[in-house]
Each structure stands twice: as C-alpha cells, then as structure tokens.
C-alpha cells in the first residue's frame, strides 16, 4: 500500500471512528443538550475527515498530479454544506429544546448565579 493510500485510509478510519463515537454518545448521554453535542460533532469532525479522504482520493493522483473531477467537487460541496450549515440546525434545535423546557430562552438569574 502506497503512503498516499495509507493516509487516505487513515483519514477514512478516523472519520468513521468519530461518527461511531458520536452515535454511541447520542445513545448514552442524557437530555437533548448533551445529545446535541455529539450530533453536532458528527456533522463537523467526522464529516471533515471522511470528506478530506474522499476529495483527496478523487483529485490527487500518482506523481502528485491534481485533477479536479466532478465527483470530487460534489463531495466537497456536500461536506462543506454539512460542515458550515449543520451548526445552524443544531443552534435552532437547542433554542427550541430550551424553550420547551423553560419558557424564556434568556438566561435566568439562578443560572447566572451558578454560572451554567
């Protein structure tokens, strides 16, 4: 296996490991806010590693030649979409969960007092 293939496989394995860890975190953690931490990490960290591996595989070739393909661009677009806009859904979910649990979204004096 060439060093390039080894690096791509390592990135892919790191990404899949992140995703599996995030899925287990969503299962184990209690409450929507703790689960959202893991769901958000799955949208950013794992997607970044897997996207990097596939884009590198699609664009870099033997001898260091770079060839931008349609597939590579589509993967880049999909991963960038998840990476950049995923946190927006996470923030909206957290605000909605907060509103359902405690009526106002703003910090209460008691929470301000204890710092969390």
């Amino acid at each position, binding site marked *: 296996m060439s060093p390039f293939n080894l690096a791509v496989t390592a990135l892919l394995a790191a990404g*899949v490991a992140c*995703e599996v860890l995030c899925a287990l975190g969503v299962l184990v953690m209690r409450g929507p806010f703790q689960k959202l931490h893991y*769901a958000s990490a799955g949208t950013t960290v*794992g997607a970044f590693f897997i996207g990097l591996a596939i884009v590198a595989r699609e664009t870099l070739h033997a001898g260091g030649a770079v060839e931008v393909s*349609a597939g590579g661009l589509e993967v880049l677009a*999909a991963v960038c979409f998840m990476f950049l806009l995923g946190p927006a859904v996470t923030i909206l979910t957290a605000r909605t969960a907060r509103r359902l649990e405690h009526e106002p979204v703003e910090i209460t004096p008691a929470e301000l007092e204890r710092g969390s």
Partner: protein
Amino acid sequence: MNVYLIAATALIAAIAPCLVVCARGSVMEAIAALELCGTLTTLALICLAEGFHRQAYFGVALVCSVLVWIGGLVFVRFAGRLK
C-alpha cells in the same frame, strides 16, 4: 470489498443507536438523533459511491445533504409548536 465499502457498512451500522434514541427518547432527543442519522446517511452514500467507483452517485449524496438540512429545520420548526 474495499475500505470504502467497509466504512459505509460501519456508518450504516452507526445509524442503529440513533434509531433507538428516536424510538425511546423525548421529541427533542429524537430530533438530535435524527440530525445525526442524516449526516451518517450522507457520508455512507459518499463512501458507497467511492467504493463502487461510480462518480454519478456522488450527486445523490449532495442532494441528501441538502434535504437532510432542510428536513432538520422543518422538524425543529414544528417541534417548537408542541408546547
């Protein structure tokens, strides 16, 4: 069977814990798990396309990522009306 197909299998298997949360958790917990399900599905589609050497399939993953994001917004919007 190459590394991409193995990765896709692991990603699809990782959907199972999220489905458990969707079935047993509260509404907001289920939405959090559903968001991760969408991410896992998109990444699994990317790995499957690479594993089968079909560049045209990357378009499916791109469409999936957009629809998952829109779906997440819609679910959260309507979940806010539950109270």
